[in-house]
């Protein structure tokens, strides 16, 4: 029997939130605080909002405490601008940094369990790239909840939504945006649990679907982070911005990809290749293991590419070693117990006596759906798509430019989330009611094709090939040769995917069907990342080209990429906002195009 792909139910609401992680929940909580009667529907792909990727964030939230005499907003803005390699938008940087502390208080006053100092005030700690006096000394700027700050944000924002009146629909995905005449009216949603398609009409639609880390085969991202939101807008003919800006953390634990924190190197851990050679001295003779993140990641990747990596027998992934054996008992017990426990837990290794396998792990997507400072989604000509918003990792406003500073991502979720909530709450009463006659046009064909494919190919194996290709060819190192090979492979895998028959014809909780749909999204994001990486003939922030190792002034713009048909790429550009520099106020010169040297 052919599965029924027709929409079985239409729901109406004021705001539809696609993705119930930290960003989406912050939007919803803000709307509900200001408009308690607003009807909000929040979708989550996972089994419950608490299972979102936000929950796994450890570090903290950067925010300048106005009562701290040593810190200043200008320092935080400068660090973000410098870290971004002059690609963040300064209007967004200013707005986020200025509202940061208020948002910390919002969370604290609503019950987040921030760590405290001996006086009972919020504790603060320092992270790489956060400085005082424009780069002079480290700034203690990040508030945190032990090593589970993301969980604190998730629990608090979700709790606030639950407290108000909100409708959650779990285990469902948005499969098609309903857009007509540059206005979004909602979307078509596939509910996995019931196996039905719903049409949800909304005055405001917010894409908060998270990152795309599953594009790579070693990633710190959750299983569901397959870039669905980016693919959703690209399928609607809208562009993505700076897709090539992808951050890799140098030391992910093989194979789960869990972060082995920077601390390992700062306490004296030594990176070694298969010949036991401590190789960092070749790449950074002075700083060695303490060189910046991107440099260490490239050094490890070089060793692996030149055949001096080790193939992990169980996970089939190449890596190098981090040697912690020489560190004192005290260091092991007091300074790195957490990361030690990851090695013990996931690899059954004792870092006190054994070498530990690490390799660069995909961590964060700076690029995403282009928005303005209010989180409104824009097309390639900077025209706002009315009623459509994007926020969180899937969006690019852009706060991070080409390299994100530690603790700035959680900050972005809660500040941009608040701005989007504000915008929607202000406009909700004035928004026109939804049109009744707008129906999905393309989702049905897509799903029909999935069910009609009759080839032997296996979705899982195609996904695995794609992910290895992206890691090897469009990862830490990129070059014209590698990227073109990757593009060729992606096109081939797309063709193979079209021949992958499903083993079950059910719509209800059909994991293979979901995985097939995700594969299309991964292929779409992969080609976007690859083509944009090919276009950007320079190295900037996390984007490193072997064949163009330096930053180039002529690329001082955001990449705007759209794909009218799979593989058919259109590349445009968007100016980087430099309003702080142009404003000419005190210290404006710090916000010029500056060198990213630490």
């Amino acid at each position, binding site marked *: 029997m052919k599965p029924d792909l027709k929409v079985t139910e239409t729901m109406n609401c004021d705001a539809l939130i696609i993705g119930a992680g930290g960003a989406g929940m912050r939007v919803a909580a803000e709307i509900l605080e200001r408009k308690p009667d607003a009807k909000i529907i929040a979708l989550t792909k*996972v*089994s*419950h909002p*608490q*299972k*979102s*990727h936000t*929950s*796994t964030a450890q570090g903290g939230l950067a925010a300048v405490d106005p009562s701290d005499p040593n810190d200043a907003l200008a320092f935080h803005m400068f660090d973000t601008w410098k870290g971004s390699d002059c690609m963040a938008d300064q209007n967004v940087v200013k707005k986020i940094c200025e509202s940061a*502390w*208020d948002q*910390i*208080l919002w969370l*604290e*006053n*609503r*019950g987040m*369990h*921030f760590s*405290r100092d*001996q*006086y*009972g*005030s*919020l504790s603060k700690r320092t992270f790489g790239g956060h400085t005082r006096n424009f780069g002079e000394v480290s700034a203690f700027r990040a508030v945190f909840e*032990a090593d*589970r700050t993301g*969980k*604190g944000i998730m*629990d608090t924002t979700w*709790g*606030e939504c*639950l*407290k108000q009146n909100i409708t959650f629909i*779990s285990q469902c995905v948005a499969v098609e945006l309903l857009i007509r005449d540059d206005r979004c009216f909602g979307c078509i949603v596939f509910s996995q*649990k019931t196996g039905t398609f719903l049409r949800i009409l909304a005055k405001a639609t917010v894409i908060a679907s998270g990152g795309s880390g599953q594009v790579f085969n070693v990633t710190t991202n*959750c*299983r*569901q982070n397959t870039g669905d939101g980016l693919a959703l807008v690209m399928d609607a003919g809208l562009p993505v911005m700076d897709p090539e800006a992808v951050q890799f953390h140098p030391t992910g634990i093989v*194979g*789960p990809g869990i972060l082995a924190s920077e601390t390992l190197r700062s306490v004296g851990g030594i990176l070694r290749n298969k010949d036991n050679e401590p190789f960092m001295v070749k790449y950074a003779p002075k700083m060695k293991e303490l060189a910046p993140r991107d440099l260490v990641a490239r050094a490890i990747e070089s060793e692996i590419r030149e055949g001096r990596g080790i193939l992990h*027998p*169980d*996970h089939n992934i190449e890596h190098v070693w981090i040697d912690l054996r020489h560190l004192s008992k005290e260091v092991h017990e007091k300074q790195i117990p957490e990361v030690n426990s*990851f090695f013990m837990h*996931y*690899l*059954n290794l004792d870092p006190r006596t054994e070498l530990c396998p690490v390799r660069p792990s995909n961590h964060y997507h700076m690029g995403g759906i282009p928005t303005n400072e209010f989180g409104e989604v824009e097309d390639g000509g900077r025209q706002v798509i009315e009623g459509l918003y994007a926020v969180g990792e899937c969006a690019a406003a852009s706060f991070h430019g080409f390299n994100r500073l530690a603790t700035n991502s959680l900050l972005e979720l809660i500040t941009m989330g608040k701005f989007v909530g504000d915008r929607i709450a202000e406009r909700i009463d004035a928004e026109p009611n939804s049109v009744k006659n707008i129906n999905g046009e393309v989702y049905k064909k897509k799903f029909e094709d999935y069910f009609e494919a009759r080839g032997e190919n*296996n979705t*899982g194996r195609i996904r*695995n090939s794609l992910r290895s290709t992206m890691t090897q060819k469009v990862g830490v190192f990129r070059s014209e040769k590698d990227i073109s090979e990757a593009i060729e492979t992606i096109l081939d895998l797309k063709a193979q995917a079209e021949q992958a028959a*499903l*083993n079950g014809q*059910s719509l*209800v*909780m*059909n*994991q*293979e069907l979901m*995985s097939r749909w995700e594969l299309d999204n991964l292929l779409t994001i992969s080609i976007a990342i690859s083509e944009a990486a090919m276009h950007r003939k320079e190295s900037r922030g996390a984007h490193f080209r072997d064949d163009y190792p330096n930053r180039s002034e002529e690329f001082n713009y955001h990449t705007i990429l759209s794909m009218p048909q799979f593989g058919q790429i259109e590349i445009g550009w968007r100016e980087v906002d430099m309003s702080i520099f142009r404003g000419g106020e005190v210290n404006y010169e710090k916000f010029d195009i500056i060198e990213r040297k630490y």
Partner: protein
Amino acid sequence: MGTYDITLNIHRYDPEEKKSRVQTYRLKAGGITRFVDLFRKINDEDDPTLTWSSSCEHGQCGACSVKINGKPLLACELLVENAVDLFKTTTFDVEPLDNVAPVVRDLVIDMEKAYERVHKVKPFIINPKPPPAGGKEHQISPKLMERYLEATRCINCFCCTSACISSTRKFLGPNAMLAAIVRAMDPRELEKQERLSCLFSEHGVYRCHSSFACSFVCPKQIDVAHFIALAKAGALQEE
């Protein structure tokens, strides 16, 4: 490390046929392969229809709980060689947490249903203490926080609820109790009365038989039973 020949007897459920069955999968796996990796391997190499749940896959979200040879645990945290060591066998029964909520398909339970237990205790601040004037955070002494901080680490994986000898009927379950206890102890919550009425209701802590199964199975090593004991003893407030 070494390679193991593993047999998984996975309890499957087809929602359309409304039929349950046990399917046996045999596979080779390295010693440090996690159980989530085994499920993925089955999907990629043998049977793409096997359905299971996970998200973060490093013990932070609680989405992949299953019962292995009867013990509720996180599939992402169980390595093959540890499982062999723990259960003294290479054959494993894999079941969903079907005593917590209805099964949707195979190893996936209806988490929304499971969470209804947690929602009943209102896992947020019902009546927040007004914040100090001048845009400040509440001052909370580390000593006071220390009393309940451990309980805030709960990830609602429902392993405790599955293992609890009394949670399947009237008891809301250990993790729901933890969520209520955190706010009963949090100085920012002014609504203590409703909190206590809930904890001491017929679905509350007095349903607990003090088997300590919750503390025994908790993947986050939270001493859940300790907090329930505090509630029973009326010792949630600061001495």
